[in-house]
């Protein structure tokens, strides 16, 4: 609100003019021209592979552009390495933090700026300077704590502080909210506001349109390496941004009728998982999923959701408790692996697609039978009937609009969204009674998200039980009939779709158990 309209200012903080970059046959950026105003937050959105990260990597000196020029504060510059970028006052906070976990915060900030062989005086100097910065930007960080002991939200603040300490006037943030809980996101946004007030420029790369709407002044949309639209944030809306990203009309809302739940098909009673280090990663998990309903599990990634899915799908042993699958009780000693689970009508779309759901090196038709290679229908005597496998894959690809529809193409050559559609097609093809879905739309283009959501709802409407794990609150809210919230390995609360609000779930995700009395407590 307080930002000066950029059109009035003639001196831009950073200008990218006619940037062009190719990687072999891939034209990652074509003739991109973008101008960022000082004291503003500029959003950069686009589907996966639209060229956002390439562009920012060029600005930060990871890549050199094939053509075009970069101007910083009106002066043409040559950025060949990240050191050049830092010298010009450009800082970057990566999606995966670049911190030494066994160092303290102060040591991390000092790293690369020691100024001599003896650390003592430099440390003292750095401490004073950093404390001044902390005050200026309202970034509180415990300087003497080990980085590994800090929650991700605080680690991210350390990264921001590190960039500021190195004199960043322009700060690039790459998907900064992917790992944060909603209260942490709010805190981050307060910090970004403060940076803007102090005259810094923030470039925010994200695919979460809601965040773009909440905090940016301007937003640029990239598609296929080109800038296809630029908006003043106040004058646009999410629908318009989504349409610009995809290049056609999209639907963000999910149409669904109220659920008509049937009998319980899958339940867990007091299931515990203790990992190799002796840490309890899943604590006393109790839940039930009924036919004809979608139960959503909300939570910041890494809070026991993966373990829950792996236990229920038979991939991981549990140490105590009982899982009941269509009336059969399964204990810690029962033989129950992923093949058993599939035989009993439980299908699983795992969270980590490339690590679990497909084999990158295999052609698509081999990935398309992963987990079902024992099916009688796919074999002729002792040998796999590849003709039938390929035909099956072609039909899966047609049903789920997988592109390119080539069953012999290597799996890794499909985009994330198309790999995911292939996995969904494979798992939904046998009409499973129970479907476990983890992060169904992670790394998936907007167009494909709507398609996947529709498929899930239609499976529910056919009377199947669905357990959905997602780090995207919007997705949980849009799809679920009931919502469980996980934090630190525990299921900390349950809400019906009607009573669930983002605020309430967010509070529970941060670990505050939801009882009516404490509603509205802020983190």
């Amino acid at each position, binding site marked *: 609100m307080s930002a000066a309209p950029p059109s009035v200012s003639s001196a831009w903080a950073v200008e990218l003019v006619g940037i062009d970059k*190719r*990687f*072999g*046959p*891939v034209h990652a950026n074509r003739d991109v021209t973008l101008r960022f105003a000082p004291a503003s937050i500029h959003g950069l959105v686009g589907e996966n*592979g639209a060229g956002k990260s390439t562009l920012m990597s060029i600005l930060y000196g990871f890549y050199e552009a*094939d*053509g075009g020029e970069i101007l910083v504060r009106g002066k043409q510059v040559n950025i060949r390495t990240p050191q050049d970028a830092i010298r010009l006052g450009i800082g970057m906070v990566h999606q995966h933090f670049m911190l030494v976990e066994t160092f303290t915060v102060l040591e991390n900030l000092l790293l690369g700026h020691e100024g001599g062989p003896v650390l003592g005086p430099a440390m003292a100097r750095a401490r004073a300077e950093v404390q001044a910065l902390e005050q200026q930007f309202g970034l509180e960080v415990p300087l003497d704590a080990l980085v590994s002991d800090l929650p991700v939200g605080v680690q991210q603040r350390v990264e921001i502080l590190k960039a500021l300490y190195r004199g960043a006037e322009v700060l690039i943030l790459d998907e900064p909210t992917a790992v944060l809980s909603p209260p942490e996101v709010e805190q981050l946004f307060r910090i970004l506001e403060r940076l803007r007030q102090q005259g810094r420029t923030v470039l925010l790369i994200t695919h979460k349109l809601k965040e773009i709407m909440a905090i940016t002044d301007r937003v640029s949309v990239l598609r*296929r390496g080109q800038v296809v639209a630029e908006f003043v944030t106040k004058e646009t809306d999410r629908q318009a941004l989504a349409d610009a990203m995809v290049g056609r009309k999209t639907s963000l809302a999910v149409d669904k009728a109220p659920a008509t739940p049937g009998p319980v098909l899958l339940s867990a009673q007091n299931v515990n998982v203790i990992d190799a280090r002796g840490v309890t990663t899943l604590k006393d998990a109790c839940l039930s999923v009924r036919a004809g309903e979608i139960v959503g599990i909300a939570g910041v990634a890494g809070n026991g959701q993966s373990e829950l899915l792996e236990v229920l*799908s*038979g*991939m991981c042993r549990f140490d105590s408790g009982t899982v009941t699958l269509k009336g059969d009780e399964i204990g810690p000693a029962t033989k129950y*692996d*992923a*093949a*058993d*689970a*599939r035989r009993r009508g439980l299908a*699983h779309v*795992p969270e980590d697609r490339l*690590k*679990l*759901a*497909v*084999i*990158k*090196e*295999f052609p698509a038709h*081999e990935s398309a*039978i*992963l*987990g079902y*290679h*024992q099916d009688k229908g796919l*074999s002729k005597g*002792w*040998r*796999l009937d*590849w003709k039938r496998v390929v035909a099956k894959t072609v039909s899966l690809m047609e049903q789920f609009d997988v592109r*390119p529809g080539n069953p012999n*193409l*290597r799996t*890794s*050559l*499909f*985009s994330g969204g198309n790999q995911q559609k292939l996995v969904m097609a494979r798992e939904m093809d046998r009409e499973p009674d129970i479907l476990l879905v983890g992060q169904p739309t992670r790394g998936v283009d907007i167009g494909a998200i709507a398609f996947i959501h529709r498929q899930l709802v239609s499976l529910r409407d056919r009377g199947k039980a669905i357990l959905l794990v997602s780090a995207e609150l919007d997705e949980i809210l849009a799809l679920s009939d009931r919502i469980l919230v996980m934090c630190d390995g525990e299921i900390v609360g349950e809400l019906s779709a009607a009573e669930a609000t983002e605020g309430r779930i967010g509070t529970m995700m941060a670990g505050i158990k939801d009882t009516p009395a404490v509603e509205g407590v802020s983190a």
Partner: protein
Amino acid sequence: MSAGAGSDNLPWWATGLLLPVVNVTLALLVSALVIFAIGEDPVGALGTMLRGAVGTGEGIGYTLYYATSLIFTALAVAIAFHGGLFNIGGEGQAYIGGLGVGLVCLSLPGWPWWAALPLSVLGGAAFGALWAAIPGWLQAYRGSHIVITTIMFNFIASSLMVYLMVNVLIKPGQMSPESETFSASMFLPMMADMMAGIGIEMASSPLNFSLFLALLACVGVWAFIWHTRWGFALRATGANENAALYAGIDPRRVIVITMALSGALAGLLGVNELHGVQHRLMLNFPAGLGFTGIAVALMGRNHPAGIIPAALLFGALYQGGTELVFDYPTISRELVVVIQGVVILFAGALEHMFRPALVRLFSRRPSAVTSKPAGA
């Protein structure tokens, strides 16, 4: 559009034919330099090797006989490779497999060869399988690295065989550590005799019926790896253990079974060497063919269709090398090993050295046609 992003899509004949030819040519050039350096005529020496390997009927017979053994040990490496395991214990597995072959043959006096063969194959496969399954089990259930354990098992196999041959299996009243000779009735037919039977004249050589067994093994391995559910599970485990677990495959079981199959194939070397040629149990009959099998598998890209020509090449090197030593007194046995080593280095270990150059060569051509050259 980004689907074709894989930057090194060479045509199959470039990787399958051109690259090996370039590598072998270079290896021969370096070998020629070495021969020149010790003062011999490189052209004459390499010519002698070539003539020795493929110039006479006898030479061809020997080349094929060595290739038979190499096919077995290379298939062993290949099947383990597809299961994600680097089995460098082929030498020891062949050794122990040979023990199995020998014990079976010694215990069936008077049997005809065609009745003894299935049992000696079974004996060799079972002993080799067991010897490889132990490191496999240690890898799967105890996390001991397969490379380390299979190397150690080579040494254990060697010591065990010395002990057995010297103390237990030695023919009584004899100095050299060899067992009794098998019954003459069960000797595998020699190729020369079989050919004579159908009216084709062929020089006498150790080449025997085992060659057919080796070719059968190639077909079997190919069908198993690429056309069965078990082969699918094996390849899935080799490519991505987590994905295998997700697919309901127990990676640990697959690892043990894969190693057992690998050891079984290596163990068949004993059928060729002992049941086919030596007709007795003795020391050191694998003679490094277990190790050379690794190079053959590498050069043959772990596919039976590549392993057969690669085994022929290495068989020719073995046989040609023997001729070379015979004809050139100044060239020692060790120098022949150097030449073989250079070929292994270029064709096996440095297999990808010229790949980037080849990729550049191939990617330049089409792009020059379809678009202007990329700047800078």
